C-alpha cells in the first residue's frame, strides 16, 4: 500500500476518509502454519485479475475468479474498476501483481514447500470487507482441500 503522502492530494483525502469509515472486522482465529520451507502457498489477489474466458468483475463484485497455477500471462487481464492505480506495471511484468514465477523459483530453491494448484482473485476497492466473509470462507475450505498452508494476499 502506498503512502498517502505519495498520492495526489484529492486521492489521498478520498482514501483517508474511506479508511476511517471502514468497519473493523478482525482478528480471526490464530493459526500457526508449518515452517515456510515446508508450506504450500496460494496467491489471493484483489486486483480484479482474471482469465479472458471469465466474466469480468463489476462494481461491488463479491465473487471470485479461479486462476489455475498453469495460467499463461497472456491469458490474464484486469477488470478492477479503479482508475487510480498503475495498470501499466502489470502490463510490463505480471509478477509485480501476481508473483507466480517468483513462487516457482522459491519452490525450486527450497525456500517454500510448494505452490497451490489453484489461486484466487477478487475485486478490491470494497468499502466494507466483511461482505467478503462468505466467499472468503469458501475459498478457505477450497484451499484446505488443495493442501494450502499459506494464503499470500496481494492487494493492488
Amino acid at each position, binding site marked *: 500500500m502506498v503512502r498517502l503522502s505519495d498520492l495526489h492530494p484529492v*486521492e489521498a483525502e478520498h482514501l483517508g476518509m474511506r479508511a476511517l469509515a*471502514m468497519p473493523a472486522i*478482525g482478528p*480471526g482465529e490464530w493459526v500457526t502454519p508449518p515452517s515456510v520451507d515446508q508450506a504450500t502457498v496460494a496467491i489471493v489477489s484483489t486486483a480484479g485479475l482474471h482469465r479472458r474466458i471469465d466474466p*469480468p468483475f463489476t462494481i461491488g463484485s463479491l465473487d471470485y475468479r479461479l486462476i489455475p497455477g498453469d495460467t499463461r500471462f497472456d491469458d490474464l487481464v484486469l477488470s478492477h*474498476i479503479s482508475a487510480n492505480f498503475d495498470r501499466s506495471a502489470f502490463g510490463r511484468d505480471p509478477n509485480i501483481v501476481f508473483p507466480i514465477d517468483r513462487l516457482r*523459483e522459491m519452490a525450486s530453491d527450497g*525456500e517454500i514447500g510448494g505452490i497451490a494448484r489453484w489461486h484466487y482473485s477478487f475485486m478490491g476497492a*470494497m468499502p466494507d470487507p466483511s461482505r467478503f466473509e462468505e466467499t472468503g470462507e469458501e475459498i478457505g475450505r477450497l484451499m484446505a482441500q488443495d493442501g494450502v498452508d499459506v494464503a499470500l494476499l496481494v492487494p493492488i
Partner: protein
Amino acid sequence: MSEAVVPPRALWVPFPLGRPLGAIDDPGFQKDVLRAAFGLLGTAAEPTIEDYPIEAPDKGMSEEWACPLNLGPTSSGGLTDRLLAEVARLRPWAIETRRERGRTLFGVSGAEENQVDELARCLAVVAETGDVIGEPDSDEINWAFDMPLLLRHIADDLRTFYHEAIAAQPGSTPPDHDALSRWIFSETILGETLLLVADGLTDASDSPIAQLVRGLLIPEGHYRGGSAFPAEANFPTP
C-alpha cells in the same frame, strides 16, 4: 485498512498503487519482498503489521516523462475524426509492444484487438451526444458490461492502447501512473474526450451509478479541479 481488517500477518510496503511487489522486471527485489512477508510466519505470535524498510528502485518509471510524438491537432474535423487520427498515429507503436510482449491487456470492454478504431469512435459519440445511459451503437463489438459502467472499461482499454504505444517508443523511460495521466489529460484528444464523457455523467443527475462511474473513469486530480467521485459514493452490491 489493515488496521481495520486485522490480518494475522501484514507487510506494509511503500510502493505505488498497482506495484505491490515493488520493482518491475526485478526478480531479486520481488523475492526479497516475499521473503519479508513469509518471514512473519516464523516471527509473529499475534496479529502483526510490519513495515518493509526498502524503497523500490524507480526502474522503468519517469515522473518527468514527455511523449516524443507530437499529438497536436492534425485535423480540424469533429471529435471523432480527431480522436481516430490520434489513435492512428499511436497504432504502429502499440502493435510493436504487443509483438514484443506477446500479449496485451486490451479488450476488457469486449472489444477485440483489431477494434480500437471502433472503440474510439463509440467513446467519441458518447462524448459528443452526452448519452451515457444508452449502449453505444456498434455492429462490431459485443460489449462485456452494461452502461454506464461500460464507459470506464472503454476508457481503460483506450488508455491501455495509449500506454502500450508509449512503451515501445525508443529513447524514453515509460511514464509512471501520474505522468501518464497528466499527458492524457493535458495533451491528448483522448483526455478531451474523457472529460466530455465525465461531463455527460455529471449531467445524468438522476442516475447515482453514473455519478459513481465518473469517479471510476477519471483518475483523481484530473477532473476539473476536484474529486471525480460524488460526495457520497456508495458501492452497490449486485
